[in-house]
């Protein structure tokens, strides 16, 4: 009989033990004795545990971690927990964590997604901290405004970026062509043909994320691709030029092969086609330059704008926040988070480590302070952004719900054009009907 009671007791102990791992508080106490006896009366200080999440590449991962360490050293009592992943995995994870009400305290946000998260009340309003913990006096009006929704501040831009084509200077010189900011698409294609002929290297028009190029070309026509519940264009005619780029590229042989394009989707910059030497250019955003420079050490890289449509009526280029830091509405340490974001905004020392991986720093003071100290690729980026500012028009409003599905649709259709299963016209027609349907459903 004693044995049975004992066994029940053991079983209970086991249950308790197995569930002990599930809990876990957000604050723990540490011994303050080590903090050189200034406040000896206080036995313990609260440790603030702050979770920070971002997407990106290895370069960003290393630099951000280093800067967070710097902050920890300056602010004893703050302890960071970091979550890092690639772009697509990141958003799957954020959505799940948001649903479970367990989002990290500080979240790297993107222009595409911020509106959704604001509308769903997942982000904390930072307005009360502005001017106190979070100083934005040196930040350009543009960079402050892009974080505001309904007059409240939901995100602080971490850098300015814009569409940019990063290219291998040697291949371009070998073919004897020159590239310049604001060149037209037909000028670009002529150059691409020559480069293919001379070097065998090919080009791409953002195959993996075609929606960005499509939106860019539509902008050149003075239209906005995404509106709430529908496309902002009247017919498939406006997206035809986008699919035409791929159809012509396959026929002309200057587009990277379908097989290589497919293999490159989802791989990082380090395994990308430019770094591997299969492609002579990549159309991306300007802040990626430093990551490309780090990954392709054997190459000299240049940077120019994306080519613009031949008959553009409006400046298609634009500046946008490369990414934000936002704070979760569920965070218990919003004030401390605001301080961390301030560190990432105004601390020149931090930027000596961060450099321009997230684009050109938003604070003018930081820009001035680090300009003499930055590496070659960051210098290139500074020059690029100041050179194109006049080429830009206002950025599009953040896209509505359903955008991810539309982007996938655009990619699937591009894939079919590249595999020559669809003509550009068919793809454009299908895109127009299906994208409208998706947006309508998502808004409803």
């Amino acid at each position: 009989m004693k044995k049975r009671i004992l066994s029940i007791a053991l079983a209970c102990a086991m249950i308790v033990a197995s569930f002990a791992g599930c809990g876990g508080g957000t604050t723990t106490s540490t011994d303050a004795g080590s903090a050189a006896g200034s406040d000896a009366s206080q036995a313990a200080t609260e440790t603030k545990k702050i979770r920070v999440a971002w997407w990106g590449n290895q370069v960003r991962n290393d630099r951000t971690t280093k800067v967070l360490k710097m902050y920890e050293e300056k602010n004893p009592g703050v302890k960071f927990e970091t979550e890092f992943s690639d772009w697509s995995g990141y958003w799957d994870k954020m959505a799940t964590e948001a649903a479970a009400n367990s989002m990290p305290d500080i979240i790297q946000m993107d222009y595409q997604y911020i509106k959704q998260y604001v509308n769903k009340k997942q982000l904390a309003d930072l307005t009360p901290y502005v001017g106190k913990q979070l100083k934005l006096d040196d930040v350009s009006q543009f960079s402050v405004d892009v974080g505001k929704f309904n007059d409240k501040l939901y995100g602080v831009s971490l850098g300015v970026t814009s569409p940019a084509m990063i290219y291998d200077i040697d291949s371009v010189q070998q073919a004897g062509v020159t590239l310049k900011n604001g060149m037209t698409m037909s000028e670009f294609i002529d150059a691409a043909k020559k480069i293919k002929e001379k070097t065998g290297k090919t080009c791409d028009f953002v195959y993996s994320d075609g929606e960005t190029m499509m939106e860019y070309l539509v902008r050149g026509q003075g239209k906005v691709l995404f509106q709430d519940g529908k496309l902002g264009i009247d017919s498939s005619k406006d997206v035809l030029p986008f699919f035409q780029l791929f159809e012509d590229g396959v026929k002309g042989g200057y587009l990277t092969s379908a097989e290589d394009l497919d293999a490159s989707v989802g791989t990082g910059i380090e395994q990308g086609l430019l770094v591997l030497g299969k492609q002579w250019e990549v159309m991306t955003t300007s802040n990626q330059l430093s990551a490309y420079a780090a990954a392709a050490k054997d190459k000299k890289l240049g940077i120019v704008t994306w080519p613009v449509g031949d008959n553009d009526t409006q400046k298609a280029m634009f500046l946008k926040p490369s990414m934000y830091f936002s704070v979760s509405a569920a965070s218990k340490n919003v004030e401390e988070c605001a301080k961390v974001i301030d560190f990432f905004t105004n601390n020149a020392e931090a930027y000596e480590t961060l450099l321009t991986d997230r684009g050109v720093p938003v604070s003018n003071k930081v820009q001035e302070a680090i300009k003499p100290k930055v590496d070659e690729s960051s210098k290139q980026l500074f020059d690029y952004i100041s050179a194109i500012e006049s080429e830009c028009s206002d950025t599009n409003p953040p896209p509505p719900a359903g955008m991810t599905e539309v982007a996938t649709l655009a990619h699937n259709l591009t894939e079919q054009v590249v595999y020559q299963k669809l003509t550009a016209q068919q793809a454009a027609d299908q895109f127009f009907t299906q994208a409208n349907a998706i947006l309508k459903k998502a808004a409803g």
Partner: protein
Amino acid sequence: MTIKQKLNRESTAGYVFILPFIIGFLAFTIIPIFFSFALSFTSYDVLSAPKFIGIDNYVQMFTNDSKFWKSMGVTFYYALVSVPLRLIFALLVAMILVRPSKASGVYRAIYYLPSIMGGSVAVAVLWKRLFASDGAINALLQLVGIPCKIAWLSNTSTAIWTLIILAVWQFGSSMLIFLSGLKQIPVTYYEAATIDGAGKMKQFFSITLPMLTPVIFFNLVMQLINGFMAFTQCYIITQGKPLDSTLFYTVYMYQNSFQFNQMGYGCAMAWVMLLIVALLTGVLFKTSNNWVYYASK
């Protein structure tokens, strides 16, 4: 019966011991299953509260989603081809390894290895490299004089086969079950057959196979269920490419749930798959009376 007596019963101790499992099973399996059933009748974008929309998700799926049908077709093809192939392969290896020899233990361990690793992300990444156009498979083919430049993963007719081969390669667990099945067949049957003059082939089809049918049946059911639930291979290696020719049902479900923020639709898809697998298993059980031979009957 007093409380003390109740507590003292042997079954009480037993229940308490399995309580951790039961709680876990309820919290992480049963409750989510029913929750997903409820969600399948809603439009739920994960970030805001679900909205009840009746059977709209199911209607949309069957009438207005060509990708749903495409992924269903791919999954059926994958499961119905890879599972029989894997079982045949497992049986072959088991037949070879069943012969007693000094090293058979080592061989069994080695052949079981792929089963343990095969479902992992690491192996999936490895597979992707193997079948790349500049990967090991093409290099090997060139080495033996076949000039091969096929892009296995970018060709609609070969891409699915790289996944099927990966599945067949993970034959270990079926093999072990076959091994134990083979050992249970009484040697006297074979002795009698040899005396009667039956050849090896005849013995295989008249003794081995019929005696193994319960094991085959078990393996078939288990592997088929696994086949329909395959996810990692597609997600890591092909992402459904090219042209959705390798888009597994589970991956499309994942895309809907987590990437397109249509959790309700994803849940509905999960339930359709559950019904299909249940139906298939039911049919297998029904037909089993006709081909599975139980010695005890």
